[in-house]
């Protein structure tokens, strides 16, 4: 029985626009065996597996049937979380807390180069009312960007600054492919995809995989001297029809953060959190999401960015990795945020390690049109992190 769960090892095999020489199975094998080698762990020592992928992205019904040999799932308990990689970490944690398992291999993979992404994304919209409109993730995000920018009088230059920061940071990140030193002006000069979103402000389909190992309190120190504890976790989902939502704010993210903070005992996120890795599929989200996370007031995301506080050398670094804009595929992007946050806590982020000490880090993942489903994890390097689990959802007064 474990009262808390730790990340004891992480591995990224690096994302590329197209991994033409790799089958999905090979991609996962490379990643899982990389993690095993790093941990000094045998497959027989892995209790169970949670993988994250999507049938539609892989063009494979039961997409986890492509990888049992690569993830070592022979005669093991495996489950596929078909959403975002951050949720796979949440589910892996839940499986360990249930008492049935002592560790859990969590991995995510996608090979988006093999499919036509806007056709796939269009299939996310209901076939009756919305699909025929030609909606995809970019158009949904553009509607959200427009609503957010109009409400808070955010300019295209300000969202372009967020993209420039992300891509410039990504240039130092060896696990992504899209980074380059670039200015907001250059971002604005890139092709308009769906107004107000320019090409360099939108995530790019990519191929990649990553993995981490979770372990119970009892087993964590067997695999590492410095476990990173999952101190808080929360998730929430909002309305499906874009017209039903107030797109100018991220309500589900706000709720997910509230739950994760409650579980982690965080009252003043802007003071207590040392570093944030968020899923900036689109540049404006790097302005909007810190507001929902309570790191600044609503509408002040652009001012927060302009203050320099969220730069890698700032007081509250946000996405020193560059985030999703640097080049992560769907599914993998949320798990990558968790890995980057954990690596920062352990000082293992290499080139992109921030200078300030990181004790508490936040990782956020999302999926669905305009970030409909959101997940927040609060990670802590502090061994004295609360030993008792607080439910992220249980109401006050209930035991």
């Amino acid at each position, binding site marked *: *029985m474990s*009262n808390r769960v730790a990340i004891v090892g992480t591995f990224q095999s690096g994302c590329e626009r197209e991994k033409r020489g790799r089958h999905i199975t090979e991609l996962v094998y490379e990643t899982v065996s990389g993690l095993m080698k790093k941990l000094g762990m045998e497959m027989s020592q892995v209790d169970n597996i949670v993988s994250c992928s*999507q*049938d*539609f992205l892989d063009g*494979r*019904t*039961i997409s*986890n*049937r492509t*990888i*049992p040999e690569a993830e070592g*799932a*022979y*005669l093991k*308990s*495996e*489950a*596929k*979380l*078909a*959403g975002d990689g951050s*949720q796979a970490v*949440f*589910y892996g*944690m*839940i*499986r360990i*807390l*249930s*008492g*049935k398992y002592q560790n859990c291999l969590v991995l995510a993979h996608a090979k988006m180069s093999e499919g036509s992404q806007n056709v*796939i994304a269009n*299939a*996310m919209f*209901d*076939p*009756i009312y919305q699909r025929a409109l030609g909606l995809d993730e970019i158009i949904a995000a553009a509607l959200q960007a427009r609503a957010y920018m109009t409400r808070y009088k955010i300019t295209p230059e300000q969202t372009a600054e967020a993209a420039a920061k992300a891509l410039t940071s990504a240039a130092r990140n060896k696990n992504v492919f899209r980074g380059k030193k670039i200015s907001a002006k250059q971002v604005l000069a890139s092709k308009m995809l769906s107004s107000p979103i320019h090409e360099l402000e939108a995530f790019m389909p990519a191929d990649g995989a990553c993995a981490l190992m979770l372990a119970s309190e009892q087993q964590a120190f067997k695999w590492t001297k410095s476990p990173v504890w999952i101190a808080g976790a*929360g*998730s*929430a*989902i*909002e*309305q*499906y029809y874009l017209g039903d939502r107030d797109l100018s704010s991220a*309500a*589900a993210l706000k*709720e997910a953060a509230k*739950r994760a903070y409650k579980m982690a005992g965080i009252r003043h996120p802007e003071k207590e959190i040392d570093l944030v890795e968020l899923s900036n599929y689109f540049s404006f989200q790097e302005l909007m999401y810190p507001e929902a996370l309570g790191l600044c007031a609503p509408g002040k995301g652009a001012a927060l960015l302009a203050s320099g506080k969220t730069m890698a050398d700032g007081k509250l670094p946000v996405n020193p990795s560059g985030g999703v804009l640097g080049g992560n595929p769907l599914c993998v992007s949320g798990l990558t945020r968790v890995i980057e946050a954990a690596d920062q806590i352990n000082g293992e982020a290499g080139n992109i390690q921030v200078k300030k000490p990181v004790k508490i880090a936040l990782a956020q993942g999302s*999926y*669905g*049109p305009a970030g*409909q*489903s959101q997940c927040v994890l609060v990670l802590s390097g502090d061994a004295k992190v609360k030993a008792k*689990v607080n*439910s992220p*959802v*249980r109401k006050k007064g*209930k*035991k």
Partner: protein
Amino acid sequence: MARKAAIIAAGQTYHKSKRRDVNIVELIHEAVKACLEDAQMGPKDIDAVLIGNMEHFEGVYNPDLWAVDATGALMKHALKITTGGTTGASVAHAGYYHVASGLFDCVLCIGWEKQSDGDTTAGLIFQSDPLFERSNMAGAIGTFALAASEYMDRFGISEEQAAKVAVKNRGNAVNNPYAHLRRPVTVQDVLTSPPLAHPIKLLDMCPTSDGACAIIVASEEVARKKSPNKPAWFKALATRHDQPFNSDLPLLINMRTLQSAAKEAYKQAGITNPRKQFDVAEFYEPCTFAELSWYEALGFCELGGGGKLIDSGVTEMTGELPVNPSGGVISTNCIGATAMIRVAEAALQVMGKAGARQVDGVKTALATGFGGSFWTEITILEGN
């Protein structure tokens, strides 16, 4: 935390090959509503919503997002878990893990499929490797034809013995108002039904159905204080996945994953004599031959003894260990829901709420899930 968890309510839709009266979210809502009514609960009582199906069957990507209004997941913790045929059981097991973790008290689990919106076999073919298996061993019929031939050859199992499974299960389905195919059949009907791929004939194989199923998994406190139903406690669960190439394993139909999962679950639940200790079992039997073989894999009889066991009547409604009182998968198969219906039917038996298909005095019930490349999810439920 390792808390106890129980199924306190279940709901399912009426099943048909084409539910033209509802769309996907309405179909899901029908099961959710039935389940919440069974629990005498509203969406506000639910902490988390877990859902699964097989997306290529309907051609809707991330249908969980669309279904938010139908499931009541709005602003709740919601996950989509999909593992192929086993999906429904994977979601039910996830419900157990959620409650046992101590983080959630009341979890709504949903499995569904609306196969009439797409083409199941077309979708299913895409699970197989495009280079090695897609052209020859993709889909359920061909794979089971090969597996059943090997089984017949090795143990002298006859087509008549397999047909008896259809006769039994289709006969049981008459008692289940939710079942898709509710017309009894005879051995002769099965043997003379159109051949699909030798030795599998139309009536040996499961149908394609539209339908959904929902259950509520709750903590001990909720189960004891709030549930109007007798709780069906999770006594044991086990999952086994396996290598992806169906043609690689000898005696495929006897499922090493099922044997291995049963070993773990039996140990956990203290089952040493399954035939005596289980009062009822719900199998995910995609075809008649599979049910015979799985009697063996689950230790109801010795290897190769499945044919004799069906002959003996042990697994009839009136027998020592009734298998598939619901009519099983041969009578109803809405794939993403199918494995959850097994768990739900087992729970209903434990609760004493199975109506005309109720087996007397059920204390311990077994449910199996089948999917992927012969993967298994086993659930053992127990009454108070």
